[in-house]
């Protein structure tokens, strides 16, 4: 128990330290998408979002963080720590994927904005066991289909 607390404090220190080191930390308290894009590993996600139907409607945090104040910053701290450490240590997968926890946060946000639209259909009597994005596969980050890099430069 005491150990856990200790670890907690240490990691907090690490978050602060590494965070400040990697990039100016305060922007993460805001909602500016480019803040996410500070990391090149977020490029694909950023670009996808940039070209998706939602750019003018929703920022990263509209979907990726809960919308009651306290949880929002808890998630940010947790994710932020994960991102920074993963990024600095480079121990993240080739293809970054949302965690189940993020999926559920996102789902809540879809419904939050579209309550009216889905009022009728979200009134099922059984658990659907599926997410909005199982169908709306490209609303958030555009087409996942074709490998992106070959299209980066048409110069050659």
């Amino acid at each position, binding site marked *: 128990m005491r150990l856990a607390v200790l670890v907690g404090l240490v990691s907090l220190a690490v978050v602060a330290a590494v965070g400040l080191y990697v990039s100016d930390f305060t922007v993460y308290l805001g909602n500016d998408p480019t803040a996410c894009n500070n990391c090149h590993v977020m490029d694909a996600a950023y670009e996808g979002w940039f070209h998706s139907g939602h750019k003018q409607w929703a920022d990263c945090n509209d979907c990726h963080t809960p919308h009651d104040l306290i949880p929002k910053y808890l998630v940010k701290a947790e994710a932020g720590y994960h991102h920074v450490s993963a990024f600095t240590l480079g121990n993240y997968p080739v293809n970054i994927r949302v965690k189940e926890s993020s999926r559920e946060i996102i789902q*809540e946000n879809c419904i939050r904005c579209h309550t009216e639209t889905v009022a009728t259909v*979200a009134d099922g009597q059984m658990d659907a066991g599926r997410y909005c994005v199982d169908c709306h596969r*490209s609303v958030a980050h555009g087409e996942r289909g074709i490998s992106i890099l070959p299209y980066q430069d048409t110069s050659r």
Partner: protein
Amino acid sequence: LFIRNTATPTRGIPELLAVAANEPDSSKWGVNFPNQYSSWKLTETNNTRTNFGGSENFDKLAADPRLVRLFAGMPFSKSYLEDRGHAMSLVDVRETGRINEKSPGACYSCKASDSPALWASMGPADFYKTPFAELGKQVNNPVGCANCHEATTMKLVVTNPALDEALKAQGRDWTTFTRQEMRSVVCANCHVEYYFKGEGRYLTFPWANGLTVEAIEKYYNDLGFKDWEHAESKAPMIKMQHPEYELFVAGSTHYNAGVACADCHMPYKRDGAAKFSDHNVRSPLLNAEAACGTCHTSVGYVVDRVNIIQKQVYDTMIATEDALVAAIDAIKAAAANPKVDAARLAEAQQLHRAAQLRWDFIAAENSMGFHNPEEALRILAAATDLARQAQLKALEAVTGAGLSGN
């Protein structure tokens, strides 16, 4: 958190009328749910044709005369039309040339929203064995709300006793299925292969060994069952009927990806702000933007693939039919030959049965293979092989063995 129980009040339209359990009249349900009702009503007037489907009830026998010989000796050789919308089911079952005085009430099972109420009142057994004409007096509504929904909750439910029994026999309890599973299972109330068991013509699904074509074949073979004796080859035949559900769940791309029948055939539609399930159930190719476009950004690409796949399956299916016709000719010729080897002739007839039930599993299925392209082609390849072997055995029955290299 998922699309799940939110308080009833949030439903698009507040209930105006309490609908009785198993209410046969869809218009009564429609008072509460005008969008679903009016879209369902459209299935009455749909008449657009697609390459291999659509809602124009053209004559399948005229389109492909081979069918007349393949079904020789049974009603499908007399009358077989392309199917159309749910609201036409009653008209079509009454107008078909396949109905005669011996037809049982069982034929109404999947054609009327009166069925659930009648099953409840008179019991399935009596329903099935009552003559078609007589039962007809109590049947007035085509496939409708009561065939898929529970009136009080609007839940999707298993309404057909045959499906309930088939699932129970497999030790599966549909009341525990997820909503997504029910979006396909509700179609299995009708879009499945069936037969009438025994004298009572009891409606039964042959699922005891599983849902693959091989499992269904084994079921019928173990039972020593035949739908009819082929008029030309005298083989004991099985007629397969609309196994949409069975083909789809056999490891298809979409089924394994968690997609349901309703996703493609009842895509959401927008009415002002709120969206609802389009109850104008028809070929998704007539509505591809909504039916496919939400999951597939390039609708042109997927529709293109459907056309490619359907042509591949159609060409392969026609080759199977030619092989079946050749087998029938050979068996007929052999049987007519005085010095025929009876044992080998019987083998040839068994091969004809095995080949044609496989072919029919794909031919009677209504997506021209799209619901599960690889499985459809695998089955057709086996059917052609068996048909040619039937032809060879028939030859051997006359010429003696050795020659054919079997």
